């Protein structure tokens, strides 16, 4: 059973909107890649996809949890913003991670860390604009 955990969305609506499609298609894309569960941690995000559960696929959505440890532990793939805490916590659990860089932060600092960790072979990264393209290529 493959689980796909997306975290650190916070105000990451830009990512969802940039795809120019309704968020409803995200689970379909994930499903087409062979996953059967998608967990979305949306933080303060304005876009709130409707959770659902079918025989072959489940979508869970929540804003915050005290600890993401459990979801991280069970995930087969993690997509996250490129915050240091998220990257380190996920990598320490040995989970594959794709990070989406929030370019609007001071000095675009998420890019520096993502680039370095990618250089060392620990993750893949992209920006809000390249998200979908990369996603299909790497996953």
């Amino acid at each position, binding site marked *: 059973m493959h689980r796909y955990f997306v975290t650190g969305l916070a105000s990451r609506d830009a990512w969802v909107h940039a795809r120019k499609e309704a968020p409803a298609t995200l689970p379909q894309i994930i499903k087409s890649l062979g996953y059967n569960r998608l967990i979305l941690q949306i933080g303060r995000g304005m876009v709130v996809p409707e959770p659902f559960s079918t025989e072959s696929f489940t979508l869970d959505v929540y804003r915050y949890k005290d600890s993401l440890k459990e979801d991280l532990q069970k995930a087969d793939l993690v997509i996250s913003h490129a915050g240091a805490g998220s990257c*380190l916590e996920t990598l320490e659990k040995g989970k594959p991670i794709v990070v989406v860089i929030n370019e609007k932060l001071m000095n675009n600092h998420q890019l520096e860390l993502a680039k370095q960790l990618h250089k060392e072979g620990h993750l893949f990264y992209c920006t809000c604009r390249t998200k979908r393209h990369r996603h299909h290529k790497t996953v």
Partner: protein
Amino acid sequence: MVCVLVLAAAAGAVAVFLVLRLWIVLHSQDVTPRRSLSLLVVAGSGGHTTEILRLLGSLSSAYSPRHYVIADTDEMSANKINSFELDRADGDPSNMSTTYYIHRIPRSREVRQSWLSTVLTTLHATWLSFPLILRVKPDLVLCNGPGTCVPICVSALLLGILGIKKVIIVYVESICRVETLSLSGKILFHLSDYFIVQWPTLKEKYPKSVYLGRIV
């Protein structure tokens, strides 16, 4: 006319005196061995708090009591700190180093706030954080880069300049900073006692910094 000159001379003398005091404070290495060090930890929002708590997880119980300073609009950090301290207390059988406090000061800068207004809000935050520093008189201030840390460190320096107490300032640049320093880092590089970086590129650019690899 004479009054103006006298005032100007007096102001100049005070300024020179303060600069000299600052130089003395920055160059004094206080190495008194002690059993414990009271710690003041600056917890900025989000990632900064996560990182500094990861760092604190490696510190011994000699760093106690711990005073956390967070921005007044930051509830998530308070929750993270409480969870951290609770976990820590669970693992500490002697229960001797479980004392901690959370203090709140006005934010220096909101994310994406303009620079000019940042200068004003930082000055305001320094004015309000000095009484806190004066009251707590920590042995050591530990911070990792949020805007909140500049007024705190300036206040800690003031304690030294005014001859009240020499506070050790330890700045750990965020792990996010691989090639370049943050703005807080650039400012506090000159004002801290120990400036720690976590990537070799920064150590090359700033040879006076301390490099210990990743410490978070």
